[in-house]
Every structure is written in structure tokens, then in C-alpha cells.
């Protein structure tokens, strides 16, 4: 939506200034992380030194990250796990969200409640009995242990969120399509889903990020160094007792987030185009 309004001064105050402030506060810690990741160790411990700049940047920490740890492998693991978990959760969430938002059926309320109620038992408690389930299925120490357990907290939210989006799409549109001869399923797939693309994308981003970020299940269900994900691997190998290897830690944090943000930037733009396309109709 390109709404331009008001004089340049008004624009500056109501738009540019808040935007800059917001971006600044959001990204400030990253700036610090970038500096730390290229700063030689000695400088880190110098209290007087300007924390915002260094005259001797070094790439040694990034090098160490790749050479001393299995970072590349962890990155691959994390991408794989997050992608598949997201796929599963979106698939389930789309269908379930539609059913709960649009369809009238007897068990709607209890089933709906059931799906979300599992949310109330936090992972810090659930991981113990979940470990049992993982063992029973024999998937311990494989990516499947987390790929199949992450949807337990991803699906309820995806469903919930998509329900919300479906509600904002007027029912009449589907009704029209069905009058024209489409079946419920066709109306759902051809009409409703495309209109909910912004919701689908944001649910997808949510699911991917939560999988990317997850710590406890990955800690407990994945034990070999080759199976670890970025959060576990980086945190484990670079925090040793009371000695933190700040340089590589922050390098790991940056490499573990900036590429993902870049990928997201494509998706975030996409749903603007999707909507503009739909509106022009």
C-alpha cells in the first residue's frame, strides 16, 4: 500500500523518524555482534575501548567457527530439519485451519480445543515423555526425532493463525464459486488458499524460525556431533564451563541468522505481489 500523505516534514516525523528508530533499536545488537565477531580477542577484554569500532578486524573467528567446529554440517542439518518440519506443519495447519474456520460439524469445538490444549504443557516438561515416544519409534539421534516432534508445537499455532486468516476472507467468495459449480475442496484450494497467501507465508516463516531456533528437543534427542543443529552445536562447543569464545559465538550467531533473513526477504515481498495480483483481478 503506497499511501503518501502530508508534507515532507509531517512524513519525516510520522514515518521516517519512527522507522529509523525502530530499525536502529532492532539492529543495534547485531551491530555489536558484527563488531565482536571481527574483533581480536584482546580488544574484547578492554573496558576502556570503544565497543563500536575496531581498528584490527580479523576473520579468524569465522575461520575458527568452520575449522574447529562442524558448523557447516550443523547448518545443513538445521536447514533440512526446519524445512521439512515447516512443510509438515503447514500442510496440516492449512487443512485443519480451514476445517475449523469454515466447516460446521459436530465435533468442531472439542477437536479444536484438543489441538490447542497440547500447547499448554510446555516443552520443558514434555520432553521427558516425548523421549520415550522417540525411543519407541526408534528415531533417536536422527533428524526425524525432531522433524516429527516439532510439529507438535508448530501445528497448533499454524492452524490457529490460518484460522484467523480464513476468517478475514469473506465466505461469500467461496459461496459464489460453489454456485458456479466448484466442489468444497476445489473452492478451498482454488479460491480460499490463494487469498490466504499472506497468512500462509507468515505461518511458514513462523514455523521455520521456531524450528531453526529450537533448543531443548534438539539437545535431548540428538546426541552425535554430526546430528546437531546450529543452536546446540555452537552453544555447546563454544561455551566451555566459564570460558566463552565470544568471537566464534557471535560469528555463529550471525551466520545462523543473516542467510535466513535474506531468504525471508524474498517471501515477505512475494505476498505483497500476490495480493496486488489478486486485487487487480
Amino acid at each position: 500500500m503506497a499511501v503518501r500523505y502530508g508534507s515532507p516534514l509531517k512524513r519525516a516525523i510520522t514515518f521516517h523518524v519512527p522507522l529509523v528508530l525502530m530499525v536502529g533499536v532492532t539492529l543495534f545488537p547485531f551491530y555489536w555482534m558484527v563488531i565482536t565477531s571481527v574483533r581480536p580477542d584482546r580488544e574484547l577484554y578492554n573496558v576502556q575501548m570503544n565497543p563500536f569500532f575496531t581498528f584490527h578486524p580479523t576473520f579468524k573467528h569465522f575461520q575458527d567457527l568452520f575449522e574447529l567446529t562442524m558448523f557447516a554440517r550443523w547448518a545443513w542439518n538445521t536447514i533440512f530439519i526446519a524445512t521439512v518440519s515447516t512443510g509438515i506443519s503447514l500442510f496440516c495447519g492449512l487443512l485443519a485451519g480451514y476445517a475449523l474456520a469454515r466447516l460446521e460439524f459436530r465435533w468442531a469445538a472439542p477437536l479444536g480445543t484438543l489441538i490447542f490444549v497440547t500447547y499448554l504443557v510446555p516443552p520443558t516438561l514434555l520432553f521427558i515423555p516425548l523421549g520415550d515416544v522417540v525411543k519407541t519409534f526408534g528415531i533417536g539421534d536422527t533428524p526425524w526425532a525432531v522433524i516429527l516432534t516439532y510439529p507438535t508445537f508448530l501445528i497448533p499455532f499454524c492452524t490457529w493463525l490460518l484460522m484467523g486468516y480464513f476468517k478475514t476472507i469473506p465466505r461469500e467468495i467461496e459461496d459464489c464459486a460453489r454456485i458456479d459449480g466448484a466442489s468444497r475442496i476445489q473452492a478451498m484450494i482454488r479460491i480460499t488458499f490463494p487469498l490466504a497467501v499472506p497468512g500462509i507465508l507468515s505461518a511458514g516463516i513462523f514455523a521455520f524460525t521456531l524450528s531453526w531456533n529450537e533448543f531443548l528437543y534438539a539437545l535431548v534427542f540428538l546426541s552425535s556431533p554430526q546430528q546437531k543443529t546450529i543452536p546446540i552445536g555452537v552453544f555447546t562447543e563454544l561455551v566451555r564451563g566459564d570460558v566463552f569464545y565470544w568471537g566464534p559465538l557471535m560469528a555463529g550467531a550471525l551466520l545462523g541468522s543473516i542467510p535466513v533473513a535474506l531468504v525471508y526477504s524474498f517471501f515477505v515481498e512475494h505476498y505483497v505481489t500476490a495480493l496486488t495480483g489478486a486485487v487487480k483481478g
Partner: protein
Amino acid sequence: MADQRIEPILAESARPTAVAVPAPVAVSVPGFRRPRRLGQLLERQDVLAVVLLAPTLTILTLFIAYPFVLGIWLAVSDKVVGRPGAFIGLENFRVNLNDTIFLRAFQNTFVYTFIATALKLALGMAAALLLNHHFRFKRIVRASMLLPWIVPTVLSTLAWQWMFDATFSVFNWMLMNAGLISKRILWLGDGTLAMGCLIAVNVWRGMPFFAITLLAGLQTVNPDLHEAAEIDGANAWQRYWRVTLPLIKPIMLVVVLFSMIATFADFQLIYVLTRGGPYSSTHVFGTYAYEIAMRAAKLGQGASISLSLFPFLLAVIVFQLWYIRRSD
């Protein structure tokens, strides 16, 4: 109103008539004719619902039905690691009510959750409104706004720990060099201040998600509605309040309630930053339950702490579902 919404989107559709009669559908895939019965079956709402819900229910039943029940059972048992537990009713909860640390955690959890959620909503909404424009670095800005959400929490929280560090805090450095303070501020050394820091980091981390989700919601609002309202003489604030807000309410509600439940159970952030200190003043349910269950090996007691809000949250979910399912 309905006409106005539909017209631009389905330019060629006929006006909706009173009765919609589902017609049998002929599938044009060569060599295959979908059996009429199946097609008709899937037109029934209850059958379709079951089919659509099947994948979800399968996964959840296989993976979480048993753990969920067990999680609840733990709270009413005296289980410790390695020994089978016995049912003891509400004894764990009685012990909790006498526990000063638990009561402190109770208070902290509510304060933490409500303030953080309110801030995330307000700031997220503001961010969404700002990002809902065309401007030159739009793409980069939107992507970079997501970064706090994307960075693994354990790692970004470590960075914050250093930034709040009593000796090295970058904030102290800035404030001192700007002459605003003469003695360093001990960010995480005072109970109230530490809670403030925790809330700040939670908001920093969580706001982007509100922003992006609400932005998606804003995007689904037809701009023609805004134009129409503007023509009618509404100013920006009125447009926002009367047009935008009601339309994105379902999404807002969903995000707020989900975020609240997640924040109630928040663990990683607080654990890395303060571990409940100083002097147990920043414990929340998640961290306290973890310490009791993992380090004192008292799984039953830990579960009871984790689940202290269960009945309350259950009521919230039921209400939320009812609200969303109200006929539009």
C-alpha cells in the same frame, strides 16, 4: 458493503442467489471419473472436516497424546527421576503455595507476560503500519526487522548478557561517555531492573513476529476500503480504528493469545540471562520448574510448577476458539 468487497475481486461473478445447490462435478482427467459417491461424500461438512483434520490428528495423537497425558499426571505424582511415582493428588500444588520462590515466580510470570505482550503488540502494530508502505529500502528493512526473531535465542541472549554485563556493558559505556551517569548501572544486579531488562529482551526478540504477522494482516485489507473511507472524510486515525482494526482483529487475537501462552512458558531467555537471579527475583514458572525438575530431579514437583497456570490458560483457549468461530 458485501457487494463493495466482492465486486473488484470477482468482477464477473453473478450476485449470490438465495440458495446454493452443489452440483455434481465432472472431472476432466482422461480415463478417470471420480466416483459420484466420493464427491458427494466430500461435500458434506462433517466428512470433509474429518478428512482435513486427519493428518493433524494423526501426528498429534502419535506424538503428543501420551506425553501430554503423562505431563499432566506428573504434576499430581511424587515422581523423582529413576523411581516410579505415586498419585498424591494436589500435594505438589500445596507445597508450591507455601514456597516463597514459587510465589515470587508466580508474580514475575504474570508481570513479565503481560507487560511484554502489551509492548510487543503496540510496537509490532506500529512497525506493521510503518512497513506497510512503499519506500526505498523496503525489502532490506523488512528482512532485517526479522533478525531478532531469527537468531537462535541462546546466542542472541548471550549477546545481551554481555551488553548488560556489570563490567562491560555497552550501555554503561555510552551513558558514561555521554556524561549522563557517573556510576555504572548494574543492569542485572537489581531485581526490578533485571526484570525490566528481561522484558526488554523479550520484546526485542518477539516484536518482529508481531510486526510481520500483523503486516500480513494489514496486507489483506483491501486498499479500496481505505480509499472509500477517505472519500467519506475519515482521517488516518479514524481509518485505522474503524476500518483496519476490526478487519485484522481475528489475527491480532490469535497472535496475542499465542504469544501470551508462549511467554508464560518462556524459559530459554531468562535461563541464559539471569537463571532466576539475583536472589531468585527473576524466576518465572519455566525456569523454576526446570531447576526443580532437572537439578533436584523432582519431576512431579517441577511438573506442578510448569502447569500451575494450566486451568487458567485452558479457559483462555476455549474462549478464544469460541470467539473465532462465531459466525461472521
